[in-house]
Every structure is written in structure tokens, then in C-alpha cells.
């Protein structure tokens, strides 16, 4: 990154980005500095990836790929946005790409056990096994969470990304705009559609809200 005086107007002032020093060190080849950034952001990255894909192992792979991509590209990072925003953008893109691959694979190979079963009523979900040992309360919560996750997965990638970033990760509209590189209006309208679709899905999945 460059000094503040050299920054263009749309750049985040270096003082705002808490990662400025670490990023600068990384750009100078300091791998340990990058490790600190990985440690700091891995959990959030993983949760974004997991909520977008619904698969923990896939999410881990996506996060690894995203950090690797970030390391390769970190010298090109010029501080137009916060480093964290840049990093989340990378993981969202990797997750989207993974979803496209999975969709393409499932289109050619047929459905998997995890896929929602399309019925006349809309998507519904396979009953999870071995629930007997769990308490009813926990069982219900777990079931609900799974259904919510399945509903998220029923959204298209764009709606999914906005919903995950806003309602799960609770980023501001401004941050989402920067992460997804979308105009404000698009973010808001996508979020509305995503929530609406989720509502319909959850109503079907849970019976009533």
C-alpha cells in the first residue's frame, strides 16, 4: 500500500485498515505476517464458505484455495478496499465457483443424497438418521438448522452470497457492496429476493413460521 497522501479518493485510508502493516509485510515477502492474517480471518472465511456450500470439507478446501489465491495476489492489493473485504470477496468467489462445479457435476452424474428432493410442493429434505439419542429440543433445533441450511442452498449463488454476508455474517450494505463489487441497489434487491425465497422455502420446510 502507499502512503495516504498518494491514495485516490476511493481508497480506504490506511489508518482504517487494521491489517495495513501485516499486509505490507506480506507484500515484502513476510510469510509469518501472512500467517497472522490467516489466523485472524480463517474462521469467518470458513463460515462464509460453509454457509454458501453447506459442506464442511468443501468449505475447508475453498478457504485454503482462497488464502492461497490471496497470497499469490497480495502484491497486487493496492488498498482500494479493506484487506478483510478483499479477502472475503476472494472466498465468496471461490465458493461460487465451487457451487458451479458441483451443479455442473450433479447435472452430469445425477443427484446426490444431500440434494434437496424436488417435489410438487417444492424442495424438501431427507430425514437425518440416528436422531433417537438426541434430546427432542436439540433434535428440533438441529433439524431446523439443517432445513435453514438446505433452504440457503436452494438459493442461487448470487442470492446465497448476499444472504450469507448480510444475515449470517452481518456485514453492512457498504461492505457487501465492496465484497461483491455490486451497486447498493443490486445488493438490496438481491437481499429482498433471497429473504423472500428463504421465507417460502422455510414455510414449506417447517410448515409454518
Amino acid at each position, binding site marked *: 500500500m502507499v502512503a495516504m497522501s498518494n491514495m485516490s479518493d476511493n481508497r480506504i485510508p490506511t489508518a482504517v485498515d487494521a491489517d495495513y502493516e501485516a499486509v505490507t509485510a506480506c507484500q515484502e*515477502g513476510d*510469510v509469518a505476517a*501472512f*500467517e497472522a492474517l*490467516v*489466523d485472524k480471518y*480463517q*474462521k469467518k472465511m*470458513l*463460515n462464509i464458505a*460453509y*454457509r454458501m456450500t453447506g459442506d*464442511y470439507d468443501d*468449505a*475447508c478446501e475453498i*478457504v*485454503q484455495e482462497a*488464502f*492461497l489465491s490471496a*497470497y*499469490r495476489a497480495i502484491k497486487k492489493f493496492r488498498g482500494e478496499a479493506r484487506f478483510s473485504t478483499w479477502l472475503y470477496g476472494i472466498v465468496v468467489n471461490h465458493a461460487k465457483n465451487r457451487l458451479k462445479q458441483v451443479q455442473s457435476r450433479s447435472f452430469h452424474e445425477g443427484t446426490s443424497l444431500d440434494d434437496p428432493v424436488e417435489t410438487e410442493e417444492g424442495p424438501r429434505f431427507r430425514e437425518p438418521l440416528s436422531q433417537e439419542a438426541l434430546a427432542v429440543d436439540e433434535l428440533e433445533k438441529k433439524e*431446523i*438448522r439443517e432445513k*435453514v*441450511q438446505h433452504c*440457503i442452498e436452494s438459493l442461487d449463488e448470487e442470492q446465497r452470497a448476499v*444472504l450469507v454476508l448480510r*444475515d*449470517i455474517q*452481518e456485514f453492512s*450494505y457498504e461492505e457487501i457492496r465492496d465484497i461483491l463489487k455490486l451497486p447498493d441497489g443490486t445488493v*438490496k434487491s438481491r*437481499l*429482498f429476493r433471497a*429473504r*423472500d425465497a*428463504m*421465507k417460502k422455502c*422455510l*414455510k414449506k420446510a417447517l410448515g409454518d*413460521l
Partner: protein
Amino acid sequence: MKACNQIKELLSLFLEGETSPEETRHITEHLSSCQECKKALEELKKTVELVKNLDEVEPPPFFTQKIMAHVREEAALSRVTGHGSRVTAIISKLFFPLHIKIPVQAFALVLVVGLVFLVYRSIEPEIKLSSTPTETAAPALKDEVGQERKKAIPAIQAAPKEAPLKGQVDVSEPARKEEAAVPTAPPREKVMEKKSEVLAEKPSPEPSIAFAPAPKESAQLQKAPAAPPPARGAGEATQAIDVGQARQATEGEPRGVASGAAKDRMERAAAPPARDYRAAAKGFERVEFVIGASDVGSTAKEVESLLSRLGAREIEREPREPGVAVKGVVDNKRLVELVEKLKSLGELRPVPAPTDRAQGESRVLIRIEP
């Protein structure tokens, strides 16, 4: 209904307080009167709540280490790649700016060649002085025949007269070896100069073959020690002469001259060359005649008296297979007269053209052969 759809679209933002005050007021008014929209808002709230209630997942153990393992692998790879690109950069620096490199390299080459030439020029006089006697031993190029012969004559004349001078011999010896090793050493421009002069004097020169057999003789000369002890030198010279005679026997008539010349060279190789290059330095021209005569001895005497009548200096007679040779230093002005007189003594071959050189002297070698 239309109003409800508009309201429902805004509910998402309304929920988060992102609507404008006017929109907020409008929605609030509508919600108080529209149960459907109110229900929609509740469902939306519940949906968002459900989504937000999703648990966070924890990264697997050593997730950072796993990621960093990949990153470090990448870093190592990029270092290797970086190193490779540095090598490429060096190579490209060496070869790619050809518009700079080629002129620089060409200039360097010219500089080196010039330097070598200068060094050669600076040591050239030494080579020339010390190697003059053996120059004829170098492989004779056809266009250097005249020059070869010019150098041969004073050497012949000087050799027997001069006592071996150790110092000079010592100086000449290594130089001669150098000469033998680098047979093309004599400066070409001087060769060409003298060649043209000789050709003017002798329009019908001997067949070039006469001086051609250089390589073997050159090798022989390399072996023959020019330095004392004289006895050994003489022995070597005799050996050399034997080689010359053997050649003459096998190669026939045109080789007669050659064998004589070869012998001369052998003698010079055996003898100290001091006088030779002094004579050469004085600019003597060397002229050689062969006279066919039935009575070699009497013809030789006549030639001697003729030379003395013409005011020649350093008249000498020596046996020269297959006859004798008389040599002397003659004023160039008397050369025409000498040729005319020699014609009357016997069959003169080759018949030299009258020289137009008015000044200086020539070393003349007249070989009388049966």
C-alpha cells in the same frame, strides 16, 4: 393489492431500518391496516432470525497450519520461479538488447584484434631480423618465389665467410624456431614490394616449383642446429644437402635449381646468419643465374675473371652440385653487361632481362652446371 406488493418489497429494508423516514411512515401506516403485510413482516423477521441463528462452525484443528503449509509451498515455488526469472533476466541482459550488445561486442573484438596487431608489430622487427636466414625455409607460396630467392642469395654468400658468432646465433636460434612454427610470419607488404621489383628485373622467373618444397626442408631446418659446435652443424647441413640431392634425383631437371637452393638454405641453417641479415638490411638485390657449360672448371674461372673485370666484390667460388657456383656483389649498373657476357660463356638459363636499376648493388650467384 398493488400497495401490498410495494410494501412487501420494502419490508426487508424496513426490518433493518434502512428505509427513508417517509417510506417508514408509509409502511407503518399500511401495516396497521393490512394484516397480510403484517404477517409477511412477521414471517420475514422469523426467517431472518432463523438464518441468523445458524451456528458458527469451528475450523478444523491446525487449520491455520494446513493453510500455511500450502502457502509456504507456494512461497518456495515462487522463490524458485523468482530465481528462474532472475536467471532469465540475466540471460536476457546478456543477449537481448542486441542493438547494444552487438556493437559493444564488435567494438571489443576490433579492440582485441587491434591490440594483437600492435603487439605483433612491436615484436615484428626482432622476428624479421632473427628469422631472415630461414625465411626461405618457410613454406613457399607461389607469389613469394622472387622474394625467397632474393633472400637466399646474400645468405649463400655470407654464410661461408662469417665465423660463427655465438651471441647472434643464440639470438637467432629461438627466433628461427618461432619462424618455423609460424611459417607465414614474414610481413606480406614487404614481400609484395620486393616481389614486384624482382619481377621487373626478371620477367621470366624460374618455375615456382624450384622453391616449393618447403615443408620437408622446413622440418629439416627445425632439427638442424644453427649454433656451434660447428662440426655438428656441418654434419646436419650435409644431411640436409643429401635430402636435397635425393629430391633432385627423383624430381628431375627443374629440381636442379631447387636442390641448390635447398642446399643453400641448409648451409645457412648450419652457419651463423649474422651477415645475411646485414646484407638484407643494406637492400642488396639477389640475382641468380645458371650457366650450362661442358667444362665447369674453366667456365667458372672465366666467370670469376668476368666478375672481377666488372668490379665485383666478394667474389667466391664454391662447389655446388652438380657443378660449381661463383658469387659476388656487382654494381647494378654492370648487371646488363654481366648478363651479356654470361650469355657468351654458355647456355644461360634463365636469361634475365636487363635491369633498369641504376643504383645499388646486387648479390649475384652464378651456378655453372655441366
